[in-house]
């Protein structure tokens, strides 16, 4: 696979690892913000190979994990409306809401379909003109432009039975909130590669300038991850704090302006509730009033009930990086991928799921 396989070469991996070992002297705690990086690290056993001086901690960059139970309950309530077809990315299917999950709701008769792209949801809408298709818009800035584009396409093609429940969230605000809370002391941050492909590297500048924390934007293949850690280590050892792009093939400083324009045309920032963190201002995306006819929140009246989170779940602390899955008393016992209590275990890139499936990286 071109531009993928080359970035998994074992010899090059050893070279990067050697560089990290050569450089690293100072104890450093690095956070990988993005769930995709967590999975890449766990799947390759990267922690095992790093020097003892480097400690990796996972952040809240898993849009599934941070979806508030109340929001998931809304989606499930919409699924119960007759004639509604819920189209969703697979990631959300097994996340437990207050009473049930999308998967269980489907087993009970709700029409819920897994799609790979909002384009597939548009096709379902066109093929079922007497049904209402609601697309579950979950994701960060990587995904929001695609959802925005789908709304513009629906508008252009006069597809009147397509709407989006926007649960989109923005990354820079939650990172700011995390750093301002001061619960976790970081020596460096691995910034999300594909979010940056859209928004560029400039939005991370405040992390280096206001908090003095080195940042490296990197990709998701093994060599990208190691390269990112190598560059962060270099900054840590040099006492520097700046934003570097270690994923030049995918990210430009200014991101993708066309994508950002579409996103801004359809969405506007709004307060959003982050599971385990709380409500943060300007941290989510709401569909603008010009596109209200595509906003599922405006189209459907639902009563999702009072949200109710599992009390045993410490996903919130895990998302903030103050605890690891190993600190949770339910981890691996009451809470497993088959019987998940919280989203960090059921999301394919949640920390708990990664730790459970691949091992904590220290022994396997």
């Amino acid at each position, binding site marked *: *696979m071109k531009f993928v396989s080359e970035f*998994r070469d074992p010899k090059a991996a050893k070279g990067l690892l050697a560089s990290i070992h050569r450089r690293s002297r100072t104890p450093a705690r690095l956070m990988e913000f993005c769930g995709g990086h967590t999975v890449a690290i766990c799947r390759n056993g990267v922690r095992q190979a790093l020097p003892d001086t480097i400690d990796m901690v996972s952040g809240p960059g898993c849009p599934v994990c941070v979806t508030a139970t109340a929001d998931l309950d809304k989606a499930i309530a919409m699924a119960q409306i007759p004639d509604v077809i819920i189209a969703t990315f697979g990631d959300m299917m097994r996340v437990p809401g207050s009473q049930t999950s999308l998967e269980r709701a489907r087993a009970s008769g709700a029409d819920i379909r897994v799609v790979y792209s909002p384009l597939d949801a548009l096709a379902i809408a066109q093929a079922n003109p007497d049904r209402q298709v609601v697309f579950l818009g979950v994701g960060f800035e990587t995904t929001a432009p695609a959802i925005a584009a789908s709304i513009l396409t629906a508008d252009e093609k006069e597809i009147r039975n397509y709407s989006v429940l926007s649960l989109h969230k923005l990354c820079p605000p939650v990172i700011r909130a995390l750093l301002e809370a001061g619960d976790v002391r970081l020596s460096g941050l691995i910034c999300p590669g594909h979010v940056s492909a859209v928004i560029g590297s400039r939005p991370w500048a405040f992390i280096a300038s206001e908090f003095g924390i080195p940042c490296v934007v990197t990709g998701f293949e093994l060599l990208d991850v190691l390269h990112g850690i190598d560059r962060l280590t270099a900054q840590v050892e040099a006492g520097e704090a700046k934003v570097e792009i270690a994923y030049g093939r995918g990210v430009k400083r200014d991101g993708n302006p066309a994508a950002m324009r579409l996103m801004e045309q359809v969405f506007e920032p709004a307060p959003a509730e982050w599971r385990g963190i709380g409500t943060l201002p300007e941290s989510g995306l709401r569909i603008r009033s010009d596109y209200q006819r595509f906003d599922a929140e405006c189209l459907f009246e639902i009563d999702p009930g009072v949200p109710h989170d599992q009390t045993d779940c410490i996903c919130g602390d895990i998302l903030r990086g103050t605890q690891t899955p190993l600190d949770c008393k339910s981890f691996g016992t009451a809470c497993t991928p088959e019987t998940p209590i919280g989203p960090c275990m059921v999301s394919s890139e949640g920390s708990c799921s990664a730790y459970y499936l691949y091992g904590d990286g220290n*022994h396997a």
Partner: protein
Amino acid sequence: MPEEILMAHGDGGKLARDLVAKAFVEVLANPILERLDDSAVVELNGRTAFTTDSYVVTPIFFPGGDIGKLAVCGTVNDLATSGARPLYLSLSLIIEEGLPREDLDRVIASVREAADEAGVVVVTGDTKVVDRGSADKLYINTAGIGEIPEGVNIAGDAARPGDLVLLSGSLGDHGIAVMSQREGIAFSTRLTSDCAPLNRMVSKMLEASPRIHCLRDPTRGGLATTLNEIAHQSRVRILIEEMSIPVKEEVASACEMLGLDPLYMANEGKLVAVVPASDVEDVLQAMRRSRYGEEAVIVGEVVLGEPGRVAMRTRLGTTRIVDMLSGAALPRIC
């Protein structure tokens, strides 16, 4: 007027008997089936393997096969991986009212073709027709009987430290071929299902070494789940090598796109063998000389350590756990 299967085809009356005669007996033709007695009567020697499986795959026609071929191969392979020589199959059909006769005929032709290749016969069967909406076009159940030769003792709990783990070929071909047809996900590929009867290859393997410890076909849940089952039953630790696992580029790409892992994708024409180190070369050669085993490789070994655990040595030289599949493998964006 194109013919469709009607409720009457399943009620035992004239229409039903006509269907059995023309669509099934004529095509699957063999002396036992042609008797159309209530039971097939056969004579068996020694230890007998007996297995059953139901097939509900959708769509029923997919690149590289169909539900009929799958039904025969799946059951033949279950017998073969128990060390048995497959002999007789039963074929039970649950047909959704309205299924085009032409589709049914196509499936039965596949059953015949696969049975011929495997050297088995369908000796008894049953047909039911259910209301439109009560079955997804066609469900099939097959049961199979085979004879286990003397001296052959294949069992899931027989793996021992020092054994090597062999895999007959690339992972995920079937799972991805079927997924490529799914609404909401579809993509184009030349990839076809690997659905195949493996009993002849198994015979050659057992000739090369009657001391093979375990044989399994990694169907649903993939290689990872199968190895976890063996590790659990045998109470051993299995270590596999990431760089040794064969995956076709197209499977790898589809998995990358959808966020799936080839280790968990279904295979319908592959097998895993756990073999004492002394016999590995012979067994490997036997596989490579067989149809469906040309690309057989060693993918790992049974080692000392925490029993019931499967781990993988990564390309980085580190080890990480390979767990069983939990829940359906769903395409994802994260």
